């Protein structure tokens, strides 16, 4: 039973197109919590992600990412985005506007370091883009490989991430 939330590391970036949280996954934990408490975009865009391979620390750009997100809007009917076989978790985990609103959200990441199982994500975001206020999302990386980190891909004036192990 999970009884503790253990801080692993934080990362931040200013005027970046992506933020990599490196060497944060290990055999110490199976489940991780990734907080994105501050994310100021410099343009309207989606929040996309990739895993970093444990073998070389580089992003896995193979077409092995499936994802789906429910877009909860304040000003229109809710929408759905869903993708299979993409080279990143694409357009499913939040959308941000160019204003400095400090969008926030939390991801739960399952088994990213296991070399014998797929890696899964679930997430909930609160972001600010033309009425697209909330996202409830899932994703799977359909490669049984060990991943050591994660890359958050969004054009940002500022972005901050913290990752925790759930023990």
């Amino acid at each position: 039973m999970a009884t503790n939330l253990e801080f692993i590391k934080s990362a931040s970036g200013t005027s970046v197109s992506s933020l990599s949280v490196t060497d944060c996954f290990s055999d110490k934990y199976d489940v991780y919590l990734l907080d994105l408490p501050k994310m100021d975009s410099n343009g309207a865009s989606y929040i996309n992600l990739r895993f970093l391979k444990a073998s070389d620390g580089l992003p896995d750009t193979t077409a092995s990412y499936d994802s789906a997100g429910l877009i909860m809007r304040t000003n229109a009917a809710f929408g759905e985005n869903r993708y299979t076989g993409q080279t990143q978790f694409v357009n499913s985990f939040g959308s941000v506007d160019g204003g400095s609103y400090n969008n926030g959200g939390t991801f739960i990441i399952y088994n990213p370091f296991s070399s014998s199982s797929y890696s899964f994500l679930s997430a909930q975001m609160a972001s600010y883009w033309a009425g697209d206020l909330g996202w409830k999302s899932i994703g799977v990386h359909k490669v049984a490989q060990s991943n050591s980190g994660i890359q958050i891909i969004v054009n940002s004036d500022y972005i901050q991430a913290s990752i925790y192990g759930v023990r």
Partner: protein
Amino acid sequence: MSDKSNKYGYVGEDIPEQSFGNNKGVFNPAEINELVADNKWTTFGQLELIDTQTISSATANFTSLSESTYNVHLFTLSDLVVTTQTEFGLRVSDDSGSTYEITNYQFANQRGFASGTFDERKSTSQASIRLGGDVTTATNSVFNGYVYMYNAGDSGKYTFFTSHNTFMSGTTQAFEFGSGVYAVASTINAIQFGQGILSAFSSGTISLYGIRYS
């Protein structure tokens, strides 16, 4: 490496810098206390309880958020009971709870019933952020769930919320999850939970946690 004073078991040598996850040396109690105070002592357990309120016929007002310490807060909502069929929600305050804001909220939620429909609940004008409803007063009809809050302590940015809750509506289980925002750039230093928009509820327990290093 830093100064040459005797510290952390080092004598006459450069003293290692200490930080979370990187404590080196042999520590006496006073040094541990000092490092804890400086937030440099490695102790796991980054979900830190700030306050728990057990409610009886009142709103739940959290007026000490430690918003300068935590970027992310977590509220857990346990067995909340309403006085009439209605929703649960929250409001924010920028004056430590003297007054709670009644404008500039937005939310967008997805609701579903175990034996009924799924529907959208959203607003750009309601005087609170909705968390879920319709909760009823039937026996065992309670409201449970959690709320994350982001950036309450940032005076230059909006404060965002996500939540996921489950409750009984009569004899039917329901869920509601979604996001909300207080769309004003200000420091939020108190949060109020209540039924309807927004008043005292009958009973229940709400706990507030800060997520350290967020």
